């Protein structure tokens, strides 16, 4: 895949994922505000936990996608060099 297209795919998908997660958190803030007080911390944990995991995975993805390819250099000597 051309690098420009790959970069567009990466950042477009990351932006969509983050936008989705932010909108879920905004909606969670509205609905958790209406739940009884004692349950609020645990409901917040359920909302924030997946968001934290998502951010970690996106960082790992960015590292994996932008990692330079590993070049393998075969260093077997050619026959002429062996003879000399």
């Amino acid at each position, binding site marked *: *895949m051309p690098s420009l297209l*790959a970069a567009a*795919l*990466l950042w*477009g*998908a*990351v932006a*969509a*994922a983050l*936008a*989705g*997660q932010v*909108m*879920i958190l905004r*909606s969670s803030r*509205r*609905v958790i505000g*209406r*739940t009884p007080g004692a*349950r609020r911390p*645990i*409901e917040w944990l*359920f*909302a924030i*936990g*997946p968001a934290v*995991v*998502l951010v970690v*995975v*996106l960082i*790992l*993805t960015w590292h*994996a*996608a932008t*990692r330079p390819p590993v070049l393998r250099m075969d260093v077997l000597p050619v026959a002429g060099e062996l003879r000399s």
Partner: protein
Amino acid sequence: MSAPGHGSLAAAGAAKPSRTLAQDLVSLTKPRIISLLLLTTIAPMYVAGDPGLGTVLLVALGGYLMAGGANAVNMYLDRDIDHVMARTRLRPIPSGRMQARFVIAFGVLLATAATWLLAALVNVLTAALALAGFYFYVFVYTRWLKRTSPQNIVIGGAAGAFPPLVGWAAVTGRLDLTALYLFLIIFYWTPPHFWALALNKQVDYGNAHVPMAPLVWGERETKDQMWWYTVLLVALTVLPVTFGAFGLVYLVSALVLGGVLLAGVWRVRVAADFAKPAWWVYGYSLLYLALLFVAMVVDAQL
């Protein structure tokens, strides 16, 4: 709350003679649900490597036993509410065809057999992941979250996301970023899928006092979250392509399948009468997940 399920097997046979014991035992494992779980277990095996047929059959058998055991224990734990809901009142315990104690023993036996099978004949990591999925479904989802939190489906959805990890570990003996993505895809697929059902089954869930999102948050917030979960899901399905886990065939499949799902969920979000579109999303999302995993295998084998 009442506790049905103390009738004898003999009495049950008289009540509904057309069902045999064997049919009831199979129904305790919820085979229709397990078929999708097995697909999401086996497909990742062919993405991760080149598994032998023996390994695939062992993992399929172990996966069926573990998921079947979890489903049987779930029916035991939910025996007090299953008779309230129309879609569950014909299950073996609420209909009086089986004793509750028999059902839990059957479930634990299946899970124990699955753990031994996977640990002894595949590898310990595979067995540990399958058992973790069992415990998560039984204790975290069924026992704790299902009746206490409207986010029961969100967090409990992790239980259904274990199968790809099981399949991946069976072939590679470890987990990596691609396996984590397969887990997340099912995790984020679960809320829109089950909330589509919950929107149409609010009376049932209300009667059983299960705090599903549409009942607690309201329909508008639920439909909003369905939409954003689907946006997030489709974005996640694309990302493995960016680090080389999948190629063009998978990318095109993910975008087309995801586009159709997004269109369906959007119809649920904007429709005043959401019943039909919600049923459509419930059905299509099953097909979506199955075809997405098939596309992964096709792409990996090309």
